[in-house]
């Protein structure tokens, strides 16, 4: 994909592997740009009028739309190809990773660099239990998920994820998959320009593609990233070192970390909450409040789940077909109410819509794009 920065931890695809990745990118671009919008036309011109003729009212609930749309051949055609393109995407990335697997592990181990030359750190916890919302199904269909070690010191899940999400968004995530980090950073700078964090925690950081953005934006701050997956964290650490960013990665569950009370002035996450569960969500938000210093900020970037019933139905394709099992519940969840359950005062919490002034990619399933940000501003001196 054009503009994607090749670094030491990524495998180098051979001719046919590259051609396969390029075709997957082209196919997905065609599906999202040319085929997917036809589902909205199908709904407006055919499904909604027929539903109204039968029921004497427009379809109201997402489930009603689901019952009708999933019987339509055009929707079936798009859905079948969308699912297959997602599986093909991982296959196209796994092939070169498998070929260079041992070399990539060697490179991640550090090669010539010594401990003293490292900027950040890595702390793993082999006894950590992978939560069910990660273990039950491979999120986004990545075989083995983000947590499976296929050998010792494995980093494959990270290398596969790095190239995979680049293809997933047709390159729109930026040369270092830094779009989400840049978006949330743009929010902080536009809406909270005086906030200068000294300690930053990124929850569910995976390969640290967003965490690195924050480490570069606040070079004097101590930046931490946590995730439940060991292979993605090993990769994140090696990748951050290769990119010259100082980040301290540790394998922890965001529902309960080992950091001290009130030890961060900024706690963030980038499209992570919808990959958890209803009970985990409240525990994560409570943990955020515990970790925040008085005056500290919590920012969770989330993709919108649609304004209209048809948009909600289209968004939830991911939930039913791409192993985003919790995201369909996120459509109905009142995030500020969940934050209040987690101990935030009503006036500490807001849910904001945000479109940064910078260019932002169009997501796959929506007509009107904006980001949602759950903001928590803990009372007390800044």
């Amino acid at each position, binding site marked *: 994909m054009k503009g994607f920065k090749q670094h030491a931890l990524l495998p180098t695809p051979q*001719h*046919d592997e*590259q*051609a*396969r990745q*390029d*075709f*997957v990118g*082209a*196919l997905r671009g065609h599906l999202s740009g040319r085929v997917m919008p036809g589902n909205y036309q199908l709904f407006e011109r055919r499904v909604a009028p027929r539903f109204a003729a039968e029921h004497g009212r427009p379809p109201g609930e997402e489930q009603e739309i689901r019952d009708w749309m*999933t019987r339509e051949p055009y929707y*079936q*055609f798009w*859905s*079948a*190809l969308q*699912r*297959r*393109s997602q*599986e*093909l995407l*991982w296959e196209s990335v*796994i092939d070169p990773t*498998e070929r260079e*697997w*041992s070399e990539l*592990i*060697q490179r991640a181990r550090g090669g010539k660099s010594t401990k003293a030359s490292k900027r950040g750190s890595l702390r793993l916890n082999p006894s950590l239990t992978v939560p069910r919302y990660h273990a*039950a*199904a*491979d999120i986004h*269909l*990545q*075989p*083995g*998920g983000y947590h*499976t070690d*296929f*050998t*010792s*010191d*494995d980093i*494959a899940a990270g290398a596969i994820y790095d190239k995979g999400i680049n293809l997933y968004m047709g390159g729109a995530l930026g040369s270092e998959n830094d779009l989400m980090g840049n978006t949330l950073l743009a929010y902080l700078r536009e809406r909270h320009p005086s906030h200068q964090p000294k300690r930053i925690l990124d929850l569910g950081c995976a390969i640290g593609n967003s965490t690195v953005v924050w480490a570069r934006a606040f070079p004097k701050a101590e930046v931490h990233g946590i995730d439940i997956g060991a292979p993605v964290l090993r990769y994140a650490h090696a990748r951050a070192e290769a990119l010259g960013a100082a980040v301290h990665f540790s394998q922890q569950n965001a529902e309960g970390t080992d950091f001290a009370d009130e030890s961060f002035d900024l706690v963030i996450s980038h499209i992570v909450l919808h990959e958890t569960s209803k009970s985990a969500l409240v525990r994560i938000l409570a943990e955020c409040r515990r970790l925040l210093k008085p005056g500290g900020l919590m920012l969770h970037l989330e993709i919108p789940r649609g304004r209209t019933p048809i948009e909600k139905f289209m968004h939830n394709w991911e939930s*039913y*077909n791409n*192993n985003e*099992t919790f995201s369909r519940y996120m459509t109905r969840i009142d995030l500020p109410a969940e934050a209040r359950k987690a101990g935030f005062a009503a006036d500490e919490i807001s849910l904001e819509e945000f479109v940064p002034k910078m260019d932002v990619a169009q997501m796959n399933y929506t007509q009107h794009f904006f980001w949602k940000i759950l903001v928590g501003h803990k009372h007390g001196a800044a």
Partner: protein
Amino acid sequence: MTDPIQPPPEFPKGHRPQVFSEPAIDQLYDGYVILGTELAVAFDRIDTLERLLQERLGVTLAEIDGYKPNEAVDAERQARRAELAQRLLRPFREFRDDRITRGSRKG
């Protein structure tokens, strides 16, 4: 040294949706996308070869377009086409073997 590497699973863990009322149609769509992908890969490879032939050996596109295989080359190509047809029709042979030739086994 790296410890032995377990092969990653071929398929993701989790619910596999069925889009069409007949599962065979889902499988047919999967095959259709895979064929398209491999065709794109072959086109890219042919394009690479043609460009290298022009740059390094001065072979022109007109010469490639005007190429007529002799009998021996044609026979090799025939054999390759037959092999491809055999590979492509594997699911149908399987179906025939399971349901028709040995119909008594599975009914």
